[in-house]
């Protein structure tokens, strides 16, 4: 999904941007603004906050471009900035502790499926594209922030487990356990929409 295979390649654009080439930096912004905005929307769930996060992310990236080491992907680096900005927004908005990325995760009972029902082979065909986007987005939004960020980066943005860990400043095992929880919770939520109808629901038995 990353645009690194496109022409011109990211490494050379980065070199130019670091030398102060304004056009090169704008090219990087255009490459990733959509993903950063989507990530910010997923975390803040608020368009105004997401827009602030988007601007702050790229302004900070521009300001601190000389600190980008180049041993990780540029996208992973800006994701880390964006996640921090987004979590600060959440903390400002709410005063509870549920937004901490360090929240301890117990792998207790709610990992277990509440409803076991088989789905159609291609359940998404039952809904229009708009309906699907609505269903998928609201399911993601209902996840707690620590799970949501991991899921969005890992399964929607297609970052590797290691890149996700780096972007969120988490350990690899923490990413894995949050990803498992997120995937199972989403599976549970989507079952309501995608399960086979009527008698077919138990056709696997």
């Amino acid at each position, binding site marked *: 999904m990353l645009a690194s295979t496109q022409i011109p390649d990211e490494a050379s654009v980065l070199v130019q941007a670091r030398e102060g080439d304004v056009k090169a930096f*704008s090219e990087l912004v255009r490459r990733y603004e959509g993903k950063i905005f989507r990530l910010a929307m997923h975390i803040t769930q608020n368009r105004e906050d997401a827009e602030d996060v988007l601007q702050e992310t790229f*302004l900070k990236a521009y300001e601190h471009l000389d600190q980008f080491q180049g041993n990780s992907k540029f996208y992973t680096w800006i994701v880390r900035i964006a996640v921090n900005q987004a979590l600060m927004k959440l903390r400002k908005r709410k005063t509870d502790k549920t937004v901490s990325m360090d929240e301890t995760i117990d792998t207790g009972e709610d990992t277990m499926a509440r409803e076991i029902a*088989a789905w159609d082979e291609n359940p*998404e065909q039952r809904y229009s594209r708009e309906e699907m*986007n609505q269903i998928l987005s609201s399911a993601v939004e209902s996840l707690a922030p620590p799970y949501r960020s991991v899921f969005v980066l890992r399964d929607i943005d297609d970052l590797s487990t290691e890149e996700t860990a780096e972007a969120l400043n988490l350990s690899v095992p923490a990413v894995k356990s949050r*990803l498992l929880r997120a*995937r199972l919770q989403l599976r549970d939520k989507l079952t309501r929409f995608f399960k086979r109808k009527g008698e077919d629901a138990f056709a*696997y*038995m």
Partner: protein
Amino acid sequence: MLTCKEFLQELTDYLDENVDAEIRSKLEQHITECPNCWVVCDTTKKTIRIYKGMEPYPIPSDVEARLMAALEKKMALK
């Protein structure tokens, strides 16, 4: 024989094809014997597939315009 709980703990690595052959065969053995875990595995796989195929929504043009304006202002200062 794995328990369902043990199966679930390995599920993410299994779906990401990140388990060694020995664990893989234990997991696959488990889902042939446990219909519930088969369903959970199959529907979780579909969940991931559906999200990966989610259409990226384009950034709203007014949001992009304001971003570019903010950047230009910043760049002019440097």
